[in-house]
């Protein structure tokens, strides 16, 4: 910006000094690279979204939602239901554990060594590979019980969402001004009451945003489900002791072992579109909630 005003508005200030010219040229080259990078990144992502929408929308029909998955044809109804059940249960578990742990870190842990250590480990777990979580649940739940189950899938997803909720709960509680806590204490409220009535109501929107973002993250996870809930072609209404059909695994199987059947690949794209739209919606709702807090 600056160099342009100097050169254009008052030309006498711009010496034909080669140093100036070189600096300006170099700046233009770098900025052109930045624009090219932005275009490059956005083109890839547009291409992906384009295939997703065209391939997905052409396979979408009502039966996709109402029929169960079959070897050939069929729909995705049972997989969508299964994913909803597992994601919801995992989000509930994750919310309870995550909010409680985040509360301790923000309200009681403070700067103590234990709290800093837990915070650090939580940050690392936040981005740990999800396939490891699948293996872990396999080793501690599936192997001893001897069969794949919906509960194992819920456990794997819960392990993935807990760090997200802990992080956002702690961050949001820290934003609640200390004077509010002091005011409540001065009125004679005990500490648990201060946290429950004052801190939570101040941080509510932020915590909900965190939970929604975590929920969006786990609803697309495939790797941890391969060894835990597996997949099934049957409707499964809340029988979490048996294998649970789910959308990500269905996409994975349709694109690998069933990829020789054209209809299964089409269904996989329809499923991918449904999944992506659901996740984007969750993200947008999360954003709206956190915006409302500011406004």
């Amino acid at each position, binding site marked *: 910006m600056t160099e342009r005003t100097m050169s254009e508005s008052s030309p006498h200030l711009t010496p034909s000094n080669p140093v100036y010219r070189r*600096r300006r040229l170099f*700046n233009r080259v770098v900025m052109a*690279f930045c624009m090219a990078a932005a275009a490059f990144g956005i083109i890839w992502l547009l291409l992906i979204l384009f295939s997703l929408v065209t391939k997905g929308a052409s396979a979408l029909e009502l039966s996709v939602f109402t029929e169960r998955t079959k070897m050939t044809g069929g729909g995705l109804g049972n997989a969508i239901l299964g994913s909803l059940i597992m994601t919801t249960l995992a989000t509930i578990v994750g919310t309870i554990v995550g909010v*409680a742990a985040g509360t*301790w870190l923000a309200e009681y842990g403070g700067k103590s060594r234990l709290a800093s250590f837990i915070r650090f480990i939580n940050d*690392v777990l936040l981005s740990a590979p999800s396939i490891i979580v699948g293996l872990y649940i396999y080793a501690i739940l599936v192997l001893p019980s001897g069969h794949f189950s919906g509960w194992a899938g819920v456990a794997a997803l819960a392990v993935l969402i807990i760090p997200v909720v802990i992080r956002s709960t702690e961050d949001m509680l820290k934003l609640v001004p200390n004077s509010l806590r002091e005011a409540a*204490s001065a009125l004679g409220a005990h500490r648990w009451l201060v946290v429950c009535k004052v801190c939570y109501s101040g941080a509510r929107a932020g915590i909900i945003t965190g939970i929604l973002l975590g929920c969006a993250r786990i609803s697309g996870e495939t790797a941890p489900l391969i060894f835990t809930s597996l997949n099934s072609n049957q409707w499964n209404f809340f029988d979490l002791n048996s294998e649970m059909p789910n959308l990500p695994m269905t*996409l994975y199987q349709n694109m690998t072992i069933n990829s020789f059947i054209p209809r299964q690949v089409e269904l996989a794209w329809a499923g991918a579109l449904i999944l992506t739209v659901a996740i984007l919606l969750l993200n947008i709702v999360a954003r709206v909630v956190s915006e409302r807090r500011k406004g």
Partner: protein
Amino acid sequence: MTQSTSGASEDVTLGATPTEQSAVKRNRRLDGLFEHTTRGFALLVLLLLGTIMMSLAISGWPALSEFGWHFFTEDRWAANLDRFGALPAIYGTLVTSGIAIAIAVPVSMGIAIFLTEKCPAALRRPLGTTVELLAGVPSIIYGMWGVEVLAPFLQSHFPTIFPAGTGLATAGLILAVMIIPFITAITRDVMLTVPPMVRESAYGLGCTTWEVTRSVIFPSVKGGLVGGVILGLGRALGETMAVTFVIGNNLFFNPTVTGQGTSIAALIANQFPEADGLQRSALLALGLMLFVITFIVLAIARVMLNRMDRRAPK
């Protein structure tokens, strides 16, 4: 902050009625209960880490003790011969992540510089939000796109480089596309922590945009930038679904960059469902190795990002 309540409660009993006294007592009990319960949940995080390490180590031990160091140097993974070597998977993981970082870092930095310094103000928020939303697209979508669109494209247009379409380089490319929004979002956040005053001062001295970025912004957020990149690397190392589809799943060690291969995560995802006995144990040992590698990488990233947070609070 509220320490005073418990200290003052002795005095409260002086003029209080019995009901009030019991209410104070009950609340004090609830206070203790609340603190201990929440601390229990917080300790669960440590328990989680401990049990992940333990369970993977215990169930991977049979394979590790059987093969010893050969597990990491053996160049072939052959379940039918009970020969399990992790070298092809380790090589594939490193090469794909390396390619991904080499492509994603300059592009992400470019996008972040564009977003923070050059982008018209009206576009800044929508573009930033788009990048963040794209960082949330599940990785299996990238994998599906890779195998359905990118691999056939590469195969038909560059048959000499990509004879099969799939391979380590294709997987690296998909990983790069996947982590670009992720690294961009972190880089942009980190660059925005530089106070506008500092930035404007540099412009006022007559610096070009590039000089401001290179000599003022980058040095003051170096740790955060490196931390963000390493976080992206951690994601690339452990990514399963985006890679499995396009890496080719070749279990022989093939020291090329464009040839077919496998990665630790892809190998686990492919073989685990049908594995048992020694093979399963070997796969769990692989999982432990992946966890240890990513743990170290992520820990370094966190240390660098945390150091930054402390210096420049938002």
